[in-house]
């Protein structure tokens, strides 16, 4: 397939082009507009490209060299599902930033870093060998470190440094694990390593490398023992970037990479992962209950939702993985919607404290309505997408003989409802404060992107219909469950 390299070329070229055009043009206003248009056109193109790829699975040999000697890009159901989610959220966050980033200077650096982060994520999703996985992981991470500290206020810098140290250690562990695997097999191609894997009984080198991989990707995906950086880092970033980080970045470089390595390369099945997920879910929920900073609350809720996804994956049954992947898509939609809403509120009120809001439904009806949709969706109420995915995960828990996990999942869901009701009550319902009487609805592009996301919250429920399901989710589930397919993929051109 000739399309695959464009997912890396286009955003990478775009990020250099933004800087280049910026250093050529003189007028500041023209420069900013050109950068906005260029970046959004690139992301729109990428999103349209992802839509053309439905139902295909193929690999692309970079430079014409065949694996295991060459590098290959690889597209299957799982990576395609993630590609659609990543590029969709990137496009909508990009549209949102056109208005939102007018609060900041240095627009060119913002767009360059944003597009670099997108390059990294697309690359992680497509790369078929371990070293490229590491390189793209680092591209995405380094861009996100810089984006977290973009405001250069004291808290933002502190959060960025913390995130950076954790992330750098995690990346080093990934490199270490890759080195150990290379010393064992002498190849780097993931499909070939998967084929050479000795079945059930691992020797100590493989165990060591699996341990390193799980630790590293848990740090990147903020599973509970390693979650400390996330509630600082995600709120500190500008709102569209928070939406990207919480919505897709931790899923791409944490969950997706973990799934790929554990299920496809190592073919390792253990209930340990589900337990990790449950712990992470409960800790996230309990910590979120006490927060009064809206973005911090959302960040803790990201930890707990990622816990749901890992719980579903850890069950290892087809239904569990189906629920997990469905929840992954839903989470990227409603979590980015919530973060964009908090950004709209911050844009007008200049505060993130829930206690100084109140009654915003009267002055910002679009933001209020969309955030209500997102809150109902994330806490799992019926017509919205979150309900179905959580239900499937809970049913899968019972079916695979772990009713205790199901009970924990239900409790987590109820508590999620509790703290989102708190957000709704404190921020959008109730009495409007005197100082907030004058504020207006958020500007056009910001409203447009949140409305699209709210519509998607409803629309993704229809993925469950058999016709749609077989086209979108089932290939992804099959890709996770059948490592043999993954091994064969490398031969299909």
């Amino acid at each position, binding site marked *: 397939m000739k399309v695959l*390299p464009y997912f890396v070329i286009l955003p990478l*070229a775009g990020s250099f082009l933004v*800087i*280049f055009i910026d*250093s050529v043009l003189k007028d500041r206003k023209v420069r900013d507009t050109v950068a906005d248009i260029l970046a959004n056109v690139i992301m729109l193109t990428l999103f349209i490209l992802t839509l053309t790829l439905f139902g295909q699975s193929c690999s692309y040999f*970079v*430079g014409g060299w065949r694996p295991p000697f060459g590098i290959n890009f690889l597209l299957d159901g799982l990576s395609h599902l993630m590609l659609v989610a990543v590029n969709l959220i990137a496009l909508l966050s990009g549209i949102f930033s056109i208005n939102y980033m007018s609060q900041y200077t240095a627009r060119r650096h913002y767009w360059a870093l944003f597009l670099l982060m997108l390059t990294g994520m697309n690359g992680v999703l497509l790369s078929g060998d371990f070293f490229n996985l590491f390189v793209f992981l680092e591209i995405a991470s380094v861009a996100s470190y810089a984006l977290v500290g973009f405001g250069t206020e004291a808290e933002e810098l502190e959060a960025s440094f913390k995130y950076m140290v954790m992330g750098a250690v995690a990346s080093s562990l990934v490199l270490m694990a890759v080195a150990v695997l290379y010393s064992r097999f002498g190849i780097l191609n993931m499909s070939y390593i998967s084929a050479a894997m000795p079945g059930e009984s691992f020797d100590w080198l493989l165990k060591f490398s699996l341990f390193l991989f799980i630790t590293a990707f848990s740090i990147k995906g903020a599973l509970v023992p390693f979650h400390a950086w996330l509630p600082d880092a995600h709120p500190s970033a500008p709102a569209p970037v928070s939406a990207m980080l919480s919505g897709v970045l931790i899923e791409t470089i944490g969950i997706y990479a973990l799934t790929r390595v554990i299920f496809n390369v190592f073919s390792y099945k253990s209930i340990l992962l589900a337990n990790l997920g449950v712990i992470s879910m409960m800790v996230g929920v309990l910590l979120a209950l006490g927060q009064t900073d809206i973005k911090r609350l959302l960040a803790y809720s990201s930890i707990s939702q990622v816990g749901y996804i890992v719980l579903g994956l850890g069950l290892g049954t087809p239904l569990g993985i189906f629920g997990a992947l469905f929840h992954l898509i839903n989470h990227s939609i409603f979590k980015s919607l919530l973060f964009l809403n908090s950004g709209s509120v911050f844009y007008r009120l200049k505060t993130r404290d829930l206690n100084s809001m109140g009654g915003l439904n009267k002055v910002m009806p679009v933001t209020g309505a969309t955030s209500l949709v997102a809150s109902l969706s994330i806490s799992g109420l019926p017509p919205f997408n979150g309900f179905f995915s959580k239900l499937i995960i809970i049913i899968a828990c019972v079916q695979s003989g772990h009713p205790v996990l199901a009970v924990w999942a239900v409790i987590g869901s109820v508590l999620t409802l509790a703290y989102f009701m708190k957000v709704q009550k404190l921020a959008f319902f109730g009495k409007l404060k005197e100082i907030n009487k004058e504020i207006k609805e958020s500007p056009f592009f910001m409203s447009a992107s949140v409305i699209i996301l709210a519509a998607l919250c409803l629309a993704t429920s229809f993925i469950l219909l058999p016709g749609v399901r077989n086209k979108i989710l089932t290939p992804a589930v099959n890709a996770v469950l059948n490592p043999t397919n993954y091994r064969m993929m490398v031969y299909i051109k």
Partner: protein
Amino acid sequence: MKREEKNRAPTTELNGMSEIVKTVCNWIAGFIFLFGCYITAYGHLTPGGGFAGGVILAASFILIVLSFGKDKISPLLPRKRAEMIEAAGGLIFIFTVWTAIYAGASFCGNFIFKKWSCANFKLLSAGFIPLLNIAIALKVMAGLFLVFFVLSITRVILEGEKLKMVKEE
């Protein structure tokens, strides 16, 4: 570092060293630049290549900043131009590997290689690899120079009660 030391005026920094150092650096800088060009151009034949060559190129500029101060460097390679060169290096690289798709090879494929029959171990024997080396050298040169420059021109000083970051531009 003591508080008083931090409080020194920013203008005394980066104004260059003594006359002897200036003279010697004036002679050497050009040769270092030339050596960087050599390392880049012969990257596919001898050890070296885009990154190593770019670092040496950047070192020649850094040497000028260290010995002469920031005044001498601003007509040579101002910050804006360095950013432009860096972006241009990246763009050259990407468009080269991109054209490979349309030139019959696949992405990143060496599309010039087959069209040239040239003896091994000659300058033009490697297809488009020298071109990529040059692009990388440009990018690394500008990037490393910018890293050095931006980190060295900023200085934290005590202004009244508050710390403030000063840019010497």
